[in-house]
């Protein structure tokens, strides 16, 4: 075998050179970003821009003078400054109540669902949902994140499904359980890294209203917040998922009003009189390896013993179609409530959510890998998934018979080699 010294020499001789033409093109882009940043620090036109400059006394005086001038003209008037991102999202982050409409459209422009939403701080939500193909049938969903209850009502059928969250670990952060949770999380994440996460889109017009936009980008998700130029209140919020699981859809939040009076009785999760009741429990304990096994069990049973090709979220989502021909992921429609397969679909959704959650949150050091593409259910000698937690001497391996075993790293290295040869 090659000596370590030879390997070291090989590293020493390994080199990358750059092509001059491309070199200049790359540097030009970097220089532009640098020049803009330098200029940006000198002109306090946007959020956070003046923070470090303000520490310098002479600049502070100059900025104070500039601020007085701007105030005299009118900040949002002719030639006014760029509305700060923080000002535009502040109502979203601070709202005690909100009402709005969400229209979800498919990639070909078809209306998928229309929801009338209500939020009440800290964790109450009520949606009235209609689907694009059955706009006259509505389903009401009421969620109380604090109590861990959720209720779906189908008024036309008098059917109620009561959900109960079990095994919740710890208290919920009031900010996280607020009904604007996902949107707020995206905003907060973007604010931590505005240079990369937030893009100013400039001015536009929506429904005749002059608006100013900011776009948040996180992976494949894009959220665009358009605010009224005059009031700086959010006017329309668009959220799209380019890829990454499920069919592409765009959610457009419109008719947004904050801090309007709402009746707490509308958020009551008790089943109204006259409704037939179904009870479902939702396990919120931290996902474990057992959840991966559970998901693989559902998959293999539904797919004649074959395993998924990969454990990517998009692939695992296929499980819904394989197991239950569910073509409307995430949708709770009125007819769903009466459908005998509804409970099964919910179990599948839960299995997907928990298994993918476990895999997604494994640390980088876990060195996990899924190699089950060609495995057949029942094969006790074929590994399909392994991972290792920090500090552990061994790997945890799920085999094709869905057993779980502790395995030495050398054995896993052999699995790796075998898998690499196959691919």
């Amino acid at each position, binding site marked *: 075998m090659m000596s370590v010294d030879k390997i070291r020499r090989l590293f020493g001789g390994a080199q990358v050179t750059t*092509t001059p033409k491309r070199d200049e093109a790359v540097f030009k882009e970097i220089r532009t970003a640098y020049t803009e940043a330098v200029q940006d620090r000198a002109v306090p036109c946007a959020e956070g821009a003046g923070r470090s400059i303000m520490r310098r006394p002479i600049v502070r005086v100059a900025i104070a003078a500039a601020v007085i001038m701007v105030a005299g003209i009118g900040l949002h008037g002719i030639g006014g400054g760029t509305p700060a991102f923080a000002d535009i999202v502040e109502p979203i982050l601070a709202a005690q109540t909100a009402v709005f409409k969400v229209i979800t459209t498919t990639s070909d422009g078809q209306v998928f669902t229309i929801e009338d939403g209500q939020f009440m701080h800290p964790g109450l939500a009520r949606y009235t949902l209609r689907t694009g193909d059955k706009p006259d049938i509505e389903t009401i969903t009421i969620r109380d994140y604090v109590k861990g209850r959720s209720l779906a009502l189908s008024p036309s059928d008098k059917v109620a499904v009561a959900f109960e969250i079990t095994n919740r670990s710890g208290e919920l952060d009031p900010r996280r359980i607020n009904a604007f949770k996902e949107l707020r999380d995206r905003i907060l994440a973007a604010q931590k890294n505005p240079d990369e996460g937030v893009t100013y889109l400039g001015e536009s017009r929506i429904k005749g209203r002059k608006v100013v936009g900011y776009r948040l980008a996180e992976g494949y998700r894009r959220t665009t917040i358009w605010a009224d130029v005059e009031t700086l209140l959010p006017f329309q919020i668009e959220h799209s998922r380019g890829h990454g699981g499920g069919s592409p859809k765009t959610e457009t939040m419109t008719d947004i009003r904050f801090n309007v009076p709402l009746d707490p009785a509308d958020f009551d999760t008790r089943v109204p009189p006259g409704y037939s009741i179904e009870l479902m429990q939702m396990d919120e304990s931290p996902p474990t390896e057992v959840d991966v096994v559970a998901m693989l069990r559902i998959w293999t049973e539904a797919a004649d013993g074959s395993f998924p090709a990969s454990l990517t979220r998009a692939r695992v989502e296929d499980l819904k179609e394989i197991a239950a021909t569910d073509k409307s992921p995430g949708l709770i429609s009125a007819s769903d409530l009466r459908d005998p397969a509804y409970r099964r679909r919910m179990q599948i959704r839960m299995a997907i959510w928990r298994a993918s959650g476990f895999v997604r949150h494994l640390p980088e050091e876990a060195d996990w890998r899924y190699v089950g593409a060609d495995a057949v259910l029942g094969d006790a000698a074929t590994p399909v998934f392994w991972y290792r937690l920090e500090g552990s001497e061994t790997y945890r391996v799920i085999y094709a018979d869905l057993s779980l075993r502790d395995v030495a790293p050398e054995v896993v290295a052999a699995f790796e080699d075998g898998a690499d040869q196959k691919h």
Partner: protein
Amino acid sequence: MLEEKLAVWRFRQGHVEGLRWIYDRYKADLLGLAVMLTGDVDRSEDAVQDVFLKLARSYDKIRIHGNLRNYLITCLMNRIRTLRRDAGRSVERQFDATPTHVSEVRPPEHWASLNEQMHQIGQALAQLPSEQREVVTLRFHAGLGFRQIARIQNASINTVQGRFRYGIEKLRSLLNGEVMR
């Protein structure tokens, strides 16, 4: 070293020549490191460009403890991890995929050009688990000590040394008979 300090000072004062010096001094070094870590030249180019872009945008905010090279290496490691996460941690290891790009003859319009040793080492490294690949690369290519690597990997020195041992053993086997004949 004095030259570097002067360049960093100029850079932080907003002078483009400071940025130019840093770019010229470290671009190839970082590209080489990225190729070894990702096994993919295109992604390496993206990651290194991102590191310089971020450096440029936050020129007045960066706090360099120690030397600039180590700072840039840490930024690059973070960027590569972010890209790896964004790639969805695919079980097929799309991000850490077999190094098809490493072994390709690359067209001239690309930024990075690899010599033969880089091709060979890149192909071999791509077959190691990412954490072993990191340790071996940071040790042999970047010349970092185990303590520094442990800090970057947020792991104990023992763990890092173990990863190094496993990584080297596998590399010895992979490279046996293929190079230095």
